[in-house]
Every structure is written in C-alpha cells, then in structure tokens.
C-alpha cells in the first residue's frame, strides 16, 4: 500500500498500514540520490531526477537553428599572458559530480534550443519541476514549463520565462501571452570568475489548472492566483517538462544545466 504525504514533515519516512517504515522511505531515497545537494527545495515527493552523470541522456533535445545539447565537463583555462594568478580557473564544470548539460542556441530571431522529458507516471495534483543552471551570458531567455499532452495536442501549459538582460520573470497566462511577474536580477560575477549555479523551480496544480508558486534563486513567488493556459482535453495524458533557451540581440547563448528534479504531492 502506498501512502502519500502532503505534510511538511520532510524528514519523516512513509509508513505502511502496520505503522512500519517501508524500505524505500525518504531517508533511503535521499541517500540514493544524494538528496542534500540535489534537492534544493525539498517539498514534494521526488518522482524523477537527473544529474546528467549518465552518458545516456534521458532528455530529448528539440532545436531550431544550429544549437546543440551536450554533456560537458569543465576545463582548465589559463591566462594568455602567462600570469597564472590573474586568470586561471575551472570553467563551468557542474553543480555536483562531473558533468552538466550544455545548451547552446543559435542567434536567429526565432531560434531556440530546448530539452524535454516525458512522463506518464504522475498523479493529477500539484507537481514541481526544478533545474539548476549557470551561464556567463548577459542576455537571452530561459523558460521552464509543463506541457500537458493528451495525444491530440498540447492542452495545458504552465511556464515561466526569465529574461537574463533585465531579470524580468514572466508567466504564460490563460490568454497564451506572457505577463510580467517580478524582476529578479541574475548574479553578476567578477571577470573570469565562474558564475554559480542557481535553481529555478515551478509548481503547478494540474487539478485546478492554476499555477502554485515559483522559486528563483531562493526567492519564492506566489502564483496561486494565475490560471494556466489550457484547452479541453481527452485521452490518456502525458506530461512534458521542458527547458528552453532563446537568443537575444542576434547573439547565440550558452547555458549549463544540472540537477533536474520532478516532484509531486507538493504542498
């Protein structure tokens, strides 16, 4: 028997009908997925995660233009003038482990590079998706979204769009247009310094077709009054979790992604 939690007792393991902890409780799960660093926001039950350490990439790339998606390691760079103290470091790397996923989009106005993961094992309720990303770019768009697909089309969509130039965060409204939510400036690093990974998380409620909240770099934004874009649906649903990057100013953009976590039973 499976028992689902909606409480905030994050360190409590599920118990069966005999009040015994099961063998796949949160503690064991945490140990398996290295949860302390991986799960930035621990609310919800983890139903899928990926840290891109496996060479078998589970996300499907969808690219318009000449973008690319590849697993990468960091590399050591050094100063051209030989002054090793000025400019030596490890570029990018990953948030944890050895690899991250590099996404590069080409510079065309309508070009994009995206990755998406399809899942059918979920419950109609509050789901959350989070990515950590890093970039040295001073422009470009990043979008994180849920697409609810019933075999006949994309019927529900909830996504947030982040504009690196200004830090403007937008959501996809019921009218299928993006609307401003807040301005959250992205970290500005020193020259030559690695830009730290930051986490974005979006929670939506599939039962009410409403947004719930977004987390951007530690800031929580209440979105519970916003409706998702949706249309009538039928058939067996599947869910696409998708992460896009798009260029601005006719400049190709590169973003490094790590530590994807999908949760359900979000509070």
């Amino acid at each position, binding site marked *: 028997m499976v028992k689902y939690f909606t409480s905030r007792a994050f360190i409590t393991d599920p118990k069966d009908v005999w009040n015994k902890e099961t063998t796949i409780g949160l503690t064991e799960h945490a140990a398996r997925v290295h949860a302390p660093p991986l799960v930035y926001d621990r609310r919800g039950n983890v139903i899928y995660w990926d840290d891109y*350490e*496996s*060479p*078998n*990439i589970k996300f499907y790339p969808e690219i318009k233009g000449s973008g*690319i998606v*590849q*697993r*990468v*390691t960091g590399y050591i760079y050094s100063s051209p003038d030989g002054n090793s103290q000025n400019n030596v470091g490890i570029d990018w790397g990953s948030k944890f482990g*050895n*690899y991250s996923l*590099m996404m*590069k989009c080409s510079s065309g106005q309508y070009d994009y590079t995206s990755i998406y993961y399809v899942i059918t094992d979920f419950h109609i309720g509050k789901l959350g998706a989070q990515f950590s990303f890093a970039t040295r770019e001073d422009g470009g768009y990043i979008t994180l979204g849920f697409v609810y697909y019933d075999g006949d089309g994309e019927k529900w969509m909830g996504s947030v769009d982040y504009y690196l130039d200004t830090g403007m965060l937008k959501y996809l409204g019921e009218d299928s247009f993006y609307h401003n939510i807040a301005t959250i400036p992205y970290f500005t690093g020193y020259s030559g310094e690695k830009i730290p990974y930051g986490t974005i998380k979006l929670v939506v409620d599939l039962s009410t077709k409403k947004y719930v909240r977004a987390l951007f770099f530690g800031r929580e934004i209440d979105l519970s009054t916003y409706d998702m874009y949706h249309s009538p649906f039928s058939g067996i649903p599947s869910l696409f979790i998708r992460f896009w990057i798009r260029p601005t100013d006719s400049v190709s953009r590169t973003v490094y992604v790590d530590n994807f976590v999908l949760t359900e039973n979000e509070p």
Partner: protein
Amino acid sequence: MTAEPIKRISIFNTSVTANTDIFSSDIIPLTVPSYLRIYVTFDTAGVLTLKRTNSGTTISENLVGEGTGGSLVENVPYIFDIITDDEETYNLQYSVNATLLKLIVLEIDRGI
C-alpha cells in the same frame, strides 16, 4: 564511475562510395570530451579519413593503418579512438569504392 560505451553507428556488409561521407549525417557527440571508438573492416585497401567539422569548416585527418603507408589492409579490422571536442561533428570517408564489411562506432564518455 565506469565508462559506459554507447553505440552510435553500426553498419554491416554495405557498399560505400569513394570520397563520400559514410554516415548520412554527422555524429554529434553526446558528451564532450569523449572517445569515438571506431572498429572498421573494408574488403578493399584504401585510406580512411576522419572529417571533423566545426562551425562549418571541415578538416581531414587520415586514420593510418600501421606499417601500410597509410592505407588500411583489406579484410583486416582496425580500431581507432577519436577524441571529441566542443561543438564538433564527425564523419568518415574512404578513398576507394569498397564494401564496408563491418563498422561500429561507440561513444565512450571517459577513459577505460
């Protein structure tokens, strides 16, 4: 962590045309850096060339059969390791019309 080879291309007993790309589309590495480990056997002697493309520019690197002056010996299998780099794609060409008896390309994400 152990290396996990991933099969990228597999061809068996297929004709190839001289100086023409063997793969219908270039191999884009899943991981960089990684190795493309190529096992290949032709029925005719010839020179196997790696076509490495970056940002629209393609360079050629001959994959040399040891002790043969550059050509591969017919009906003899060879193994090559190609090291991949950021934003590069890869293809192969052979210098003569031949039958490609066997070719398999594995992508290996770390050294073994």
